[in-house]
């Protein structure tokens, strides 16, 4: 089976190379059959890499430890779903998985767009396959997942052998979230390759209207959504697996996923300015190029051990190749952009600082600033070593100091931006739209202050959240009220139909609301407290309104791990609310047994109670239990779900029924959209 996989990789490499050559040569010679052949080759690559992935999955399923990757990332007693997810549990496999998603996306793009955009598509294929060629080369020559397990003899010559058992999957990765977190993240990273490819193709073919943006609008949203899901799942995983009570630590690997997200978010917003006003054309090109480069860079960061990280990735040979690919892709794209500047003239000018365009511009500016800050902070050890010879790291204070105000300012724009008129917002409309939300938000702010919320940023964040929520509710209310009076629908029907008729706008509001919820949860972090105690059976420990009581301390044994486990009763204001079971596991596979902490969380809308089994005391009679009181954390996850739901709504095609229009200025935009559709 390994030979088949190996062969599939080699075949993929050849076919990818052929696809690039055939596409480009076909265009040059105006040879349609050659172009079609290049397209078919691109589809063929997908088949090849799919076979390779299937082989790898099979090898995991049958525990074939003669293959090094299997021996190093699995063991016989590993449950089957973890065996399958081990495909992306290590270096070689996760890169193969990346490459596979890229070919899958490519195939889908080809099927969707081949007829519609016949001039651009050969170039799109060439760009996607160019990226794919880089990855297939890596699979085949640098980090091949099908290499044999060998034993180094005393004269250093390798001798193939089959170990009795594998060294196991890292226990920290034996978690349902880790099964789906990497695929989601990669679906996001890889997804940005599609708009990038269209951007490049648009520049080459000089079709620089908004065709490429309209074509890739949904792709960008899908990629963005998956990346958001990936980041959220990563946070969720960290929260319940790492046992330090939080979900975000500005670790380089987390930052790696944050950077493309920030620029991708900027891109997602600024394309609207190009669609509506024909402005920011160069800027959008820069953004999508950077988003793609950051996706590759993110993969490089997580995969090369370039900067110190809590994630145990090996120092590996991939770094240099990735850097080379980034340099080639970036300089090529920027050169092309520079060459096409004359074709990218703006059709309009910014007119007023209080306008939709301007709010988009500031949104872009600070998202980019955030990305730059994250980049700078992550790379600072390397930059400072190059500049001064000593490696200097920056800590979370750096990231928080810069990004907290940025996030709050973003929040402000989230509330204000969508309601500002294009070109110039009149003072009257400002009053009409914002006066009541602002007054209510500020009044609640005063009330909150006197009830003890005096942490400045937390206070500001909550006030902003209220403000934004009110503006969003107002939008839905206004639209639905007008609609129900015009059509006789009930209010609820009106809301649904309103949303379905302009999914992008109202879906966008839902995304913004998700962002607000996420914010509220995140603000709760400012009020986290914790306590710790050595506890025997019957001992109690109190934190805020909760009391813990140890009922049992015991040992549990399974084939995969053994664990120390505490059974703890949780009381809220003296009333029992839950049984919690924090444990400390010792996984059995591999030479060195690795302990992991399994936290136990009691989660409510108000707060989480988060229990960590830190270990036993030396005499073995008591357990050291740490408890965190984390306010509002649940809202982070709910916010994430709402954010995804909103994106899904925005992805729906608009319902086309043209109903009686209401005579309001806002409907101009909708009418335009409907007209465009018809």
């Amino acid at each position, binding site marked *: 089976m390994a030979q088949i996989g190996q062969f599939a990789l080699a075949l993929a490499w050849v076919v990818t190379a052929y696809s690039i050559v055939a596409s480009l040569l076909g265009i040059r010679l105006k040879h349609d059959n050659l172009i079609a052949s290049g397209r078919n080759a691109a589809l063929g690559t997908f088949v090849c890499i799919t076979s390779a992935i299937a082989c790898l999955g099979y090898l995991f399923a049958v525990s074939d430890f003669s293959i090094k990757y299997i021996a190093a990332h699995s063991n016989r007693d590993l449950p089957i779903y973890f065996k399958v997810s081990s495909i992306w549990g290590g270096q070689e496999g996760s890169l193969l998985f990346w490459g596979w998603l890229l070919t899958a996306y490519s195939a889908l793009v080809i099927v969707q767009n081949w007829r519609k955009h016949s001039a651009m598509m050969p170039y799109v294929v060439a760009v996607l396959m160019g990226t794919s060629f880089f990855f297939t080369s890596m699979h085949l020559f640098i980090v091949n997942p099908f290499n044999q397990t060998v034993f180094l003899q005393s004269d250093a010559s390798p001798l193939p052998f089959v170990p009795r058992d594998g*060294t196991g999957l890292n226990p920290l990765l034996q978690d349902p979230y880790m099964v789906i977190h990497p695929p989601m993240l990669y679906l996001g990273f890889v997804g940005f390759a599609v708009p990038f490819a269209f951007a490049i193709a648009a520049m080459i073919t000089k079709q620089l209207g908004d065709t490429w943006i309209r074509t890739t609008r949904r792709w960008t949203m899908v990629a963005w959504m998956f990346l958001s899901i990936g980041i959220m799942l990563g946070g969720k995983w960290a929260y319940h697996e790492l046992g330090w009570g939080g979900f975000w630590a500005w670790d380089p690997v987390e930052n790696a996923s944050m950077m493309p997200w920030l620029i991708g978010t900027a891109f997602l917003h600024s394309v609207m300015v190009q669609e509506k006003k024909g402005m920011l054309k160069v800027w959008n090109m820069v953004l999508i190029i950077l988003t793609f480069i950051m996706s590759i860079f993110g993969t490089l960061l997580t995969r090369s051990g370039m900067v110190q990280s809590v994630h145990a990735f090996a120092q590996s040979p991939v770094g240099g190749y990735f850097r080379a690919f980034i340099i080639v892709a970036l300089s090529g794209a920027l050169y092309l952009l520079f060459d096409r500047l004359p074709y990218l003239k703006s059709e309009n000018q910014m007119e007023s600082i209080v306008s939709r365009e301007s709010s988009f511009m500031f949104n872009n500016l600070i998202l980019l600033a955030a990305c730059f800050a994250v980049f700078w902070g992550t790379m600072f050890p390397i930059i400072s070593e190059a500049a001064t010879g000593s490696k200097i790291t920056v800590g979370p204070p750096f990231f928080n100091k810069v990004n907290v105000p940025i996030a709050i300012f973003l929040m402000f724009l989230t509330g204000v931006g969508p309601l500002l008129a294009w070109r110039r917002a009149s003072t009257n409309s400002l009053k009409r739209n914002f006066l009541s939300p602002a007054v209510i938000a500020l009044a609640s702010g005063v009330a909150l202050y006197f009830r003890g919320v005096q942490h400045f940023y937390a206070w500001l964040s909550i006030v902003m959240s209220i403000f934004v929520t009110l503006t969003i509710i107002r939008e839905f209310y206004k639209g639905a009220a007008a609609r129900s009076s015009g059509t006789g629908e009930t209010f609820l029907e009106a809301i649904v139909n309103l949303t379905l008729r302009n999914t992008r706008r109202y879906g966008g509001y839902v995304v913004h609301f998700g962002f607000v919820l996420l914010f509220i949860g995140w603000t709760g972090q400012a009020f986290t407290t914790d306590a710790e105690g050595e506890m025997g059976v019957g001992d109690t420990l109190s934190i805020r309104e909760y009391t813990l009581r140890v009922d049992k301390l015991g040992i549990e044994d399974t084939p995969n791990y053994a664990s120390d486990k505490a059974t703890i009763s949780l009381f809220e204001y003296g009333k029992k609310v839950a049984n919690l079971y924090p444990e400390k596991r010792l996984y059995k596979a591999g030479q060195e047994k690795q302990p992991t902490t399994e936290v136990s969380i009691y989660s409510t809308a108000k707060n989480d109670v988060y229990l960590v089994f830190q270990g036993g005391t030396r005499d073995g009679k008591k357990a050291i239990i740490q408890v965190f009181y984390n306010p509002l954390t649940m809202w982070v996850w709910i916010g994430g779900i709402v954010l995804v739901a909103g994106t899904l709504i925005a992805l729906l095609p608009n319902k086309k029924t043209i109903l009686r229009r209401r005579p309001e200025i806002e409907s101009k935009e909708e009418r335009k959209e409907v007209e465009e559709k018809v």
Partner: protein
Amino acid sequence: MKRKQLKFVAGSVVIILTLAYLAYSGFKEGNAYYQTVSELYASKDQAYTRRLKVAGDVVPGSIQREGKSINFMISQQDEKTKQVETLTVKYVGNDAPPDTFVDRAQAVVEGQLGRDGVFVANKMQAKCASKYEKESAAGVRKSD
């Protein structure tokens, strides 16, 4: 330049300067020198005043809990002199040490070197000896 554009430029400059200031102050607050054990000893007096991050392998058998703090030693072989240098660490952080903190793990401690030569850390990261080393210990190595 038109007056309208001037407003945008001014607005952007204000934002960027504010962020730059915040970045600078955040940096001052949280920066740390990343050093190896031997670099730490080589930097002599400076070592006592700087906030440091030091990496090394946990010496087997050295981990001892003492009330709320954990005492252990990390060691590292100097790349040039091939000498193994050892540093005694007292971890007093609020967070529990990570699961990966075991004998022979690679630990990164953050804190300050005391005049008594004991490194007082309030932050710690640890990871398993890198995959490569672990594999060679198990007799499994890359075939290339």
